[in-house]
């Protein structure tokens, strides 16, 4: 528990009769970028709201840096900065005033406001009313608001929503910078694996309120079994032949047959076997599902 920034133990949460979160056991190590993935409506935002004590969780199911959340609400919230759903910004105040207001609430020096604006690239729009900001600018301001208290743990709910490719890269780099150089822990939710697979050190995949996978990116890759694609001139006959040889065929199309990849040696033997039996093999290649497809497969399972 000592090395975990967030731990939920068999967390359950219902809205009335509807179960939103079911037996969720998150384990977010300190210093990690934890990609919290799931399709829309999977329970990601609900989980983040539970972690912020905005939604009441049962006692002894949520721990922030080892402390039970309900019993230590204020102490836990002091360590957390969050961006939940759409950034919550006072539209009639300027970007700078929004940050100053947050500084007032947190009892910190107002000088942090311009620093944060510079960090998220909003210095030029500091005195513009936040209602007039574009979605991307609002998102940046939301991130600045989450960062202003210099929290140990950041909860970012789909932070790249509405950002252009440059903005997405900047947020990605900022997350890496915060964890590597400032020892922060980040839980970042997304419905797109591709968006966070380059930055996340750990992944949790949730669907319909249940955690389907939790582990490092490498562990996720291990689930991803490689395939051998064989390009041949007579697909139907080759398939028949392989089946007779007790070799599993996963799929096929007009040009290619896909079988499980076992080893380079086995692939060579298979090639020889096919050639010796009169098939022309134009290519053999190893294929891996990309993580996005793997993610889709995992979330389809329940």
């Amino acid at each position: 528990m000592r090395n975990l920034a967030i731990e939920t133990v068999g967390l359950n949460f219902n809205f009335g009769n509807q179960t939103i979160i079911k037996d969720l056991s998150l384990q977010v190590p300190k210093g990690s970028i934890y990609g919290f993935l799931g399709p829309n409506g999977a329970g990601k935002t609900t989980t983040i709201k539970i972690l912020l004590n905005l939604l009441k969780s049962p006692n002894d199911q949520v721990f922030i840096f080892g402390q039970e959340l309900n019993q230590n609400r204020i102490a836990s919230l002091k360590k957390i900065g969050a961006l939940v759903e759409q950034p919550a910004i006072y539209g009639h105040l300027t970007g700078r005033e929004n940050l100053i207001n947050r500084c007032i609430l947190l009892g910190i020096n107002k000088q942090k406001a311009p620093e944060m604006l510079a960090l998220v690239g909003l210095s030029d729009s500091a005195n513009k009313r936040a209602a007039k900001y574009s979605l991307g600018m609002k998102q940046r301001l939301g991130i600045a608001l989450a960062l202003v208290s210099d929290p140990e743990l950041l909860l970012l709910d789909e932070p790249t929503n509405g950002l252009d490719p440059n903005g997405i890269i900047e947020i990605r780099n900022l997350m890496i910078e915060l964890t590597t150089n400032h020892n922060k822990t980040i839980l970042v939710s997304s419905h797109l694996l591709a968006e966070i697979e380059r930055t996340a050190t750990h992944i949790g995949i949730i669907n319909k309120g249940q955690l389907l996978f939790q582990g490092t990116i490498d562990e996720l890759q291990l689930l991803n079994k490689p395939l051998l694609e064989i390009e041949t001139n007579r697909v139907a006959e080759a398939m028949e032949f392989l089946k007779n040889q007790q070799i599993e065929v996963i799929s096929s199309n007009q040009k290619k047959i896909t079988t499980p990849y076992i080893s380079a040696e086995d692939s060579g033997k298979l090639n020889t076997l096919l050639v010796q039996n009169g098939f022309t093999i134009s290519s053999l290649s190893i294929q891996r599902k990309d993580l996005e497809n793997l993610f889709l497969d995992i979330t389809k399972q329940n």
Partner: protein
Amino acid sequence: MRSFYISLVSEFYKSRKTLAFWAAILLPLIVCSLISFGFFTNSEKILAYHYPPMLLWARYCSASLDSMGMLILPFYVIFMAFSVNNIEHKNDTWKTLFAQPLHKFSIYAAKYVYAVLLVAICLFLFAGLTFTYGHILQVLVPQYNLDQYNPSKLLINSYSKLFLSSLGILSIQFLFSVLWSDFLKPMGIGFVGTIMGIITASLQWKYAYLIPYSLPALALRISKVKKGDLFDFPIFTSEIWTSLIYATILFILGYFIVSRKSIK
């Protein structure tokens, strides 16, 4: 306590550019200016009545007091209680407010106290501007002889009663605006309540004092009925106690609602 103080400072900071805040200043400024302008332009007619200074002050003060007590104050309180919470509903900021490392009670109490302060500022300005404009009128129309009577007691007692009697409405409307994000529900109930309050107060229904919306009108009525010493009326009368009891119960009830509120 620190949590409450910073929440209160934040309430001021974020609402200082809103109509709810400026209404507390502009409302007394506009109403008192219009009444004084009327007294200035109609000075000949008014002088024809030959009011003694005390009665002239009473007429001058009651021009703003009556309109305030009957209509403006209840509606201002309803609007302001709505605005203080609407700033969070409109911007969807309840979630960030309650995700700050602050006691929920401090956040709630600061909002409530801020609303109370705005009413207090508004009524204090009414009293202050009535007093100041009265003396300016005296300079402009020396025949009024307004300088021969000190209306401080009348103004302090009347506006203190109005302030205390408005706390019941404030608390009930504050609760509504915490519960509902839309404008129509609290405003609709407030509007119907105020009309009901005015009717029951003017019909002198014996249980009118149980309706929070009738309390400002009742508070002023009683002050006028006491004829013995016109301006030496007690502040803490039954309707004021009713208002304070309503305010206390609803404030506590509001906190229980807020503390159990799930931010969906």
